[in-house]
């Protein structure tokens, strides 16, 4: 499995997204559960408050009753003040209960009953106490007390409050259970959330670790490949240099060893030629003095010999030129390159000046585009390439139109491209490779030449780490495109 795979990356991204969404959901759920739990707890507290309020009311009512009885029995002021305080506190306690049970219709009914009971009890108590305050009525008060309804109202009150408390206790049980449930839910949600957090963090960590490991691995691989590549390039360069040297040596040796027999052919042809004169003279004399001695073949030989020797001479001379061309190429290949900064425009202008007389004769013009990109290369080689191309443009012009040659240059990345474009007779696409081959020419053979120029140009271009190509079609002019490294590295090319 590769971690760099597009599919895998998408899957990881998806998983992370799902993880985070789950985490958010879990967080939300935890929040909700916590709030629910809080609400449940507050309801439990509320129930306790109701119970407390009920207890307080019960106590107050009982204390009120106790105070009344105490007063009736002993007419003591302490009991009276106790009675007054309780009777003052009771409405507040009742209000508290009313407020607390506002949410519960069942209890509200009970509270209303309690309020009625408390009120009737209070009134009967008040009556009793007021009577008791005037001493003459004290006996009457005692009598009233024994027959009034407060005993019953107290009993009903206790029963009702008891019912209310029971109801509240039922509620409490219910609410406690709900609180416990909410707590449980909260716990579960929190646990799940925690687990999710761990899972997402773990997943993220795993991905990060895997990516890091993968990155390290690919870095190592890259380093290894780079080293391998450098070695491969070095080996290849060495191989190429060796092959190139071998070709140079081969060309050198071949051209020398071919020259040796050629010297003989030429030398002895000359010796032969020297014998023609005396032989011709001999035949002529014999012909004059004793024609019978001269055969038809002998007369024929007299004419054939100079012709044969003429052909031998022409051929050997041509062979000599070809061998010299090979020698020149091999020598050029062995020349040490010396890279220097070259002003292409000035160099081209100088070449144009050197062919000015030819241009004048044929009525042509050479345009040198400005500006030309800077170039660091071997000046002599560049000069030879450009003058060769320009001379070709003049040589193979189209007589139907005035010659025009445009030389331009531009920079493309690490390379400099130089175009030499003419409006000459053009080259058929089938010949675009052929013209660069040694001793090969294309088109109408109406110009002198051995087919060396472009072979030389290509060899020079290769030597400079460049390439030369031809863009043309017959009758449409030709553009020779030279692509060179902007800075010649003599370490790489030999």
């Amino acid at each position, binding site marked *: 499995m590769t971690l760099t795979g597009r599919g895998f990356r998408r899957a990881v991204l998806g998983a992370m997204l799902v993880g985070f969404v789950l985490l958010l959901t879990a967080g939300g759920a935890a929040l909700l559960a916590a709030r629910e739990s809080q609400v449940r707890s507050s309801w439990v507290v509320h129930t306790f408050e109701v119970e407390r309020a009920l207890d307080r009311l019960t106590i107050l009512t009982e204390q009120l009753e106790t105070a009344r009885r105490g007063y009736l029995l002993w007419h003591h002021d302490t009991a009276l003040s106790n009675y007054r305080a309780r009777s003052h506190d009771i409405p507040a306690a009742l209000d508290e209960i009313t407020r607390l049970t506002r949410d519960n219709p069942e209890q509200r009914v009970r509270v209303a009953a309690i309020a009625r009971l408390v009120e009737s009890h209070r009134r009967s108590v008040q009556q009793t106490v007021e009577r008791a305050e005037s001493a003459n009525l004290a006996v009457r008060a005692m009598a009233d007390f024994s027959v009034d309804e407060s005993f019953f109202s107290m009993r009903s009150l206790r029963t009702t409050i008891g019912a209310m408390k029971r109801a509240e206790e039922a509620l409490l049980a219910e609410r406690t259970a709900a609180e416990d449930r909410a707590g449980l839910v909260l716990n579960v949600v929190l646990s799940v959330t925690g687990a999710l957090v761990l899972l997402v963090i773990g997943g993220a960590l795993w991905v990060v670790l895997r990516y890091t490991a993968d990155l390290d691995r690919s870095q190592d691989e890259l380093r290894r490949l780079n080293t391998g590549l450098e070695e491969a390039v070095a080996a290849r360069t060495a191989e190429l240099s060796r092959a190139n040297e071998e070709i140079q040596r081969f060309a050198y040796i071949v051209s*020398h*060893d071919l*020259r*040796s*027999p*050629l*010297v*003989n052919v*030429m*030398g*002895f*042809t*000359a*010796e032969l030629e020297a014998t023609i004169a005396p032989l011709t003279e001999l035949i002529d004399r014999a012909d004059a003095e004793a024609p019978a001695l001269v055969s038809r073949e002998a007369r024929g030989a007299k004419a054939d010999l100079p012709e044969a020797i003429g052909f031998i001479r022409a051929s*050997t*001379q041509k062979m*000599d030129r070809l061998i010299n061309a090979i020698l020149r190429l091999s*020598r050029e290949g062995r020349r040490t390159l010396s890279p220097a900064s070259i002003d292409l425009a000035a160099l081209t202008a100088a070449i144009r000046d050197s062919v000015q007389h030819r241009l004048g004769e044929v009525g042509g013009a050479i345009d040198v585009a400005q500006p030309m990109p800077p170039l660091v290369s071997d000046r002599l080689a560049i000069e030879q390439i450009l003058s060769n191309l320009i001379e070709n443009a003049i040589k193979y012009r189209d007589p139907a139109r005035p010659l025009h040659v445009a030389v331009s240059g531009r920079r493309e990345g690490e390379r400099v491209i130089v175009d030499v474009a003419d409006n000459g007779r053009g080259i058929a696409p089938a010949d675009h490779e052929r013209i660069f081959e040694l001793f090969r020419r294309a088109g109408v053979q109406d110009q002198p030449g051995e087919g060396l120029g472009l072979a030389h140009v290509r060899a020079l271009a290769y030597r400079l780490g460049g390439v030369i190509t031809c863009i043309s079609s017959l009758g449409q002019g030709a553009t020779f495109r030279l692509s060179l490294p902007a800075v010649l590295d003599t370490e790489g090319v030999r």
Partner: protein
Amino acid sequence: MSEHSVNIIMIEDDEGHARLIEKNIRRAGIANAIRHFVDGTKALAHLFDDPDGPARNGPALILLDLNLPDMSGIDILAKIKADAKLRRTPVVVLTTTDDKQEIQRCYDLGANVYITKPVNYESFAKAIQQLGLFLSVIQVPEVGEG
């Protein structure tokens, strides 16, 4: 010893070249004896050890081809010019090479004349005839001069 006639020692592996050289030398009117060797080993043996050779017997002129089957003419040139007795013997390097560096090397080693064998026969004959002139002008100096 100075009245000895100069022997011409020709070290040339190509029989044709040798014949052409000889013909042209004779044509130039030079009648000196010519000894021809086709390989370096025999030539060195003659130069250094032969009782008739220049090391032991009188002045000579050496015509040397650089491309020999068994050794380079340059080595022979170096040996001649390193030898106390032979180093004053004029050496004419006659070869097909017209490489500037090689010519320079021959002169550095002490070659007296360097002639490129031209394919053009007229100039070749002319070169050899000039050699004849050269031969008639030089008087091989005594060993120990200067």
